[in-house]
């Protein structure tokens, strides 16, 4: 059966996780990507979240 995907939740989750990781890096003085540390890690988080929503192993649930 064709899996039901949730790209919006994946995108938001990735962005939120990216912001969190970027803030931890800043607070611990690890600006690994220079002046674009926060912006880039947030965007990458969103992209990876989107990919995750499509490529993650599907969850099996009984039909409603």
């Amino acid at each position, binding site marked *: *059966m*064709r*899996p*039901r*995907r*949730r*790209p919006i*939740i*994946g995108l*938001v*989750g*990735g*962005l*939120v*996780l*990216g*912001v*969190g*990781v970027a*803030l*931890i890096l*800043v*607070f*611990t*003085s*690890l*600006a690994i*990507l*220079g*002046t*674009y*540390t*926060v*912006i*880039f890690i947030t965007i*990458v*988080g969103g*992209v*990876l*979240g*989107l*990919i*995750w*929503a*499509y*490529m*993650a*192993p*599907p*969850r*099996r*649930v*009984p*039909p*409603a």
Partner: protein
Amino acid sequence: MRPTARAARATVISLVALCVLVAPVAAFDMNGGCDLALSSTDESGAPLDAASGGPSGDDGGTQDDPFLVDWEGSVSWTGSSGDQVFTNHTWQTYVFNIPIPVAGGDDNPDGTTTAEGSADVSDNAPFQFTGLYYVSGQINGEGGTHCDGSGWFKMTGNPLTTIPFWIAVGICVLGGVLLWAARPVVAVVPSTAAATVVAPPPTEPPPPPPPSGEAGR
């Protein structure tokens, strides 16, 4: 190649490209003829660090040698706009290239070209924070007057004892929960239910019609 695989490959390539292309700021950078000199003190009032930028030379405030700031200390600054007089000006500051609400403007009717001041750090933030920050800013006035600058500063201290660090950890947990919920879902018929599906009873064949021609004999 599948679209998702292409997207994953593009992401990896972008990451590598940015790591290669993004170089840390080489110096405390001031452009447009303005000067800025900063100095900080620690909790006891002893000098902690200094940084400066402008036509008179750049010193400190880089990613490798950030301007150190103590939460319990203070920061003093002296600035000059050089030959320019900023009238009806607006200014804006950024942290990691993201605009922040620290902005303003002034008519500057007296034509002032210098400014200086001092502030206690803890009096100007709602809670303690630590870390390494890239801060930039610009000021634009009437007649095309313009200055901009950027530099790195570091708030000293242990991040584990600050509220913002744990808020960031909470944001990570929230993001993880959302990603967990974002997994694709497949509706499957449970095997027990499939096994208990009862086949419909066989239908009885209709009775053969009575022979019409032999009924009356």
